[in-house]
């Protein structure tokens, strides 16, 4: 009983972590599900989102121009909200630019898409180094979501509660979008099912660009949410893209709920192993992945995909 009681906080921590992993993986899932492109630049775009939020929120981000003094003079809450809205747009534009480059690889081996986005990941990360330097930044956040509380053995940081709720909200919104809107129906059908898309009278290139932009905007949002937890560094992208891809492969390519469930599973496994073998905990997610994929090649809820060829 004592054992379980001790375990409980780690379980809760794991679920919270899992929600964050799911949040990181959402944009990745959207792009891979619709376009069958593995966007290895997801992590770098995630990092870029955090840096752009930094620029919007604090003069330390590099935008310390005289005419912006008034902007940085106002309270932090509106600045933070503005960052949460504007940064994803900026990153979405970068993402759409990347999609433009990707067009040349459509119809070829999906490997080329993978390679191209790997190159893009490198370029974006290096560009971040050139612009913002190598050092680590701290993203200032409003007082309201700072601090923490301790209840019995459960310590809980306000920010993590906020981040978890935010993740649930994002997952819910995306689900509504996919299930309840006509765009969602198209996305669900998948742009690779081009016959159906054409039958619906949709401009396929435009759809692809939009989906890519949308997916990368989600990466940016995840980057902003994770920034206070992981810090802002150029190489933080690798920390994001690797779990994202584990979550997607585990959940099954093309499955929304697969990604959410896999995110939670990964979070719990990492959280629980952290209770006993803290320094090995990150390894646990790969072992989980291997165990699942060995028996279910397509992951938990995966559908058949052109990527298998």
């Amino acid at each position, binding site marked *: 009983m004592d054992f379980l009681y001790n375990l409980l*906080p780690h379980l809760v921590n794991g679920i919270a*972590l899992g929600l964050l992993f799911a949040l990181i993986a959402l944009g990745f899932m959207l792009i891979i599900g619709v376009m069958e492109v593995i966007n290895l630049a997801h992590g770098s775009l995630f990092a870029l989102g955090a840096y752009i939020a930094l620029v919007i929120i604090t003069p330390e981000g590099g935008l310390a121009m005289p005419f912006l003094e008034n902007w940085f003079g106002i309270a932090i809450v509106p600045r933070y909200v503005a960052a949460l809205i504007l940064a994803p747009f900026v990153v979405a534009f970068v993402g759409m630019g990347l999609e433009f480059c990707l067009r040349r690889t459509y119809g070829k081996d999906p490997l080329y898409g993978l390679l191209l986005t790997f190159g893009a990941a490198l370029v974006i990360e290096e560009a971040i180094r050139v612009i913002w330097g190598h050092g680590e930044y*701290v993203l200032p956040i409003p007082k309201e979501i700072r601090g*923490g509380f301790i209840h019995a053995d459960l310590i809980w940081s306000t920010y*993590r509660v906020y981040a978890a709720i935010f993740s649930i909200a994002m997952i819910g919104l995306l689900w509504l979008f996919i299930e309840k809107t006509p765009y969602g129906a198209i996305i669900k059908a998948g742009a690779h099912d081009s016959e159906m898309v054409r039958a619906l009278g949709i401009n396929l290139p435009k759809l692809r660009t939009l989906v890519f932009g949308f997916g990368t905007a989600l990466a940016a949002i995840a980057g902003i949410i994770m920034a206070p937890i*992981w810090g802002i*560094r150029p190489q933080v992208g690798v920390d994001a893209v690797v779990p994202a891809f584990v979550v997607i492969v585990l959940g099954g390519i093309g499955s929304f709920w697969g990604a959410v469930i896999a995110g939670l599973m990964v979070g719990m496994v990492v959280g629980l192993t952290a*209770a006993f073998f803290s320094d090995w905990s990150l390894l646990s997610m790969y072992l989980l992945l291997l165990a699942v994929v060995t028996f279910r090649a397509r992951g938990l809820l995966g559908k058949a995909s052109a990527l298998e060829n």
Partner: protein
Amino acid sequence: MTNKFKAKISRRDLIKTTALTAAGATLAPFMGPWKYNRVWAADKPILIGLTHDASGQFANSGQAEKRGTIMAIDEANANGGVLGRKIEYIWADTETTPATGSRVAERLITRDEVAFMVGAIQSGVANAISQVCQKYGCVYFNTNSSSPTESGKNCHRVKFVWDGSGANFARAAASGAVTKFGKNWILLTNDYVWGHNTSKATQEILESLGGSVADNILVPVGTRDYSSILLKLQQAKPDVVATAVGGDDYKALRQQVQELQLDTKMAWLSNQLDWPDIYGAGAEAAFGVFAATWYHYLDLPGVDDFVKRYQERWPDTRMNVPGNVTYNGYVAMRELLRAIEEAGTTNNIKVIKTLEGRVMKADDRMQHHDAWIDENSHHVQQTIYLATRQDQPRDDSDYFKILQTMDPKEVANPGESACNLESYDDTPTYEM
């Protein structure tokens, strides 16, 4: 050909002869004229290789010490150089990666032909560099890596270690903490050489004082999310948490501890708090008790002047006062240049002999006690300060309150006897 380097042949000769034998004697005429027969003019600049990190976990610290070493070089040049020769430097990023450190060292020595090398934050990198340096006999200053093994089992004849070691800091911090806070400790250890050895030193001292370690939690390098570790601490409720976590990892830890107000629930003892790791976080982040080798508000002559010179030389830097890392870089480089001048030559063995056992006056080093370079471990024995958070800051750069000043003898690390320097004969010699 299997014999080890025989002493007293110059590095240049060494490269030449082996290249020749390997390429075959018939090729000898091709090898000669291009390069190796060139004679350096006496006023040829002395070239120093700087190996400060500019990326990776210790990018910030690397750049901080670079500011220090460059200041010392500039000041020497302004005073007419060394041996009448100008000092030049060439810098390479070691990326806080041992493999890169190794390659960069090979390159600086064999291609750029530097005479000396200076710079290190992370012990793994320092180690990799010093291995290469020892092979060529190149004198190397480890400026800021404080793993006890650097001046213990991984010491080298060509390497000099300028920062206090984790064992010194542990000695300084632990004794007071046991009586003040309690005997039940948990260690947080960054998972690499510096962390392991520092925690080991802490544990030894703690146990000799009758305390015990309840748990030693390893913190992977690059950890940003401490939630599960903090949960464990909250559940275990130790008297003291002794951390050996460095760089940006430590920054993140401190922030999260503070956010959850765990700093009020248990005593936090950190081995050493490097200035670049805290600068910008505000005085309130400097909770717990920690050690340092220098602080810009030390009440000593010369400190203010040094701060001013720093600000004039680096007006644009984010860190507008020098900290211990910059200080170490500065005094190390200054001492290297003085030693060359005193030796009257750039001959590496002569410079090494000048440095060994060298005593440096307290006033000159802006510390409270005289410092000296231990001739058996090549480790600088210096004053250690114990500090905590400043509750009445003089200005917004004033984070620390100095609690105690420790004499180098009080904190000396007996573990340095593990050091076994290579003999002079086994160290290739050169003159640039």
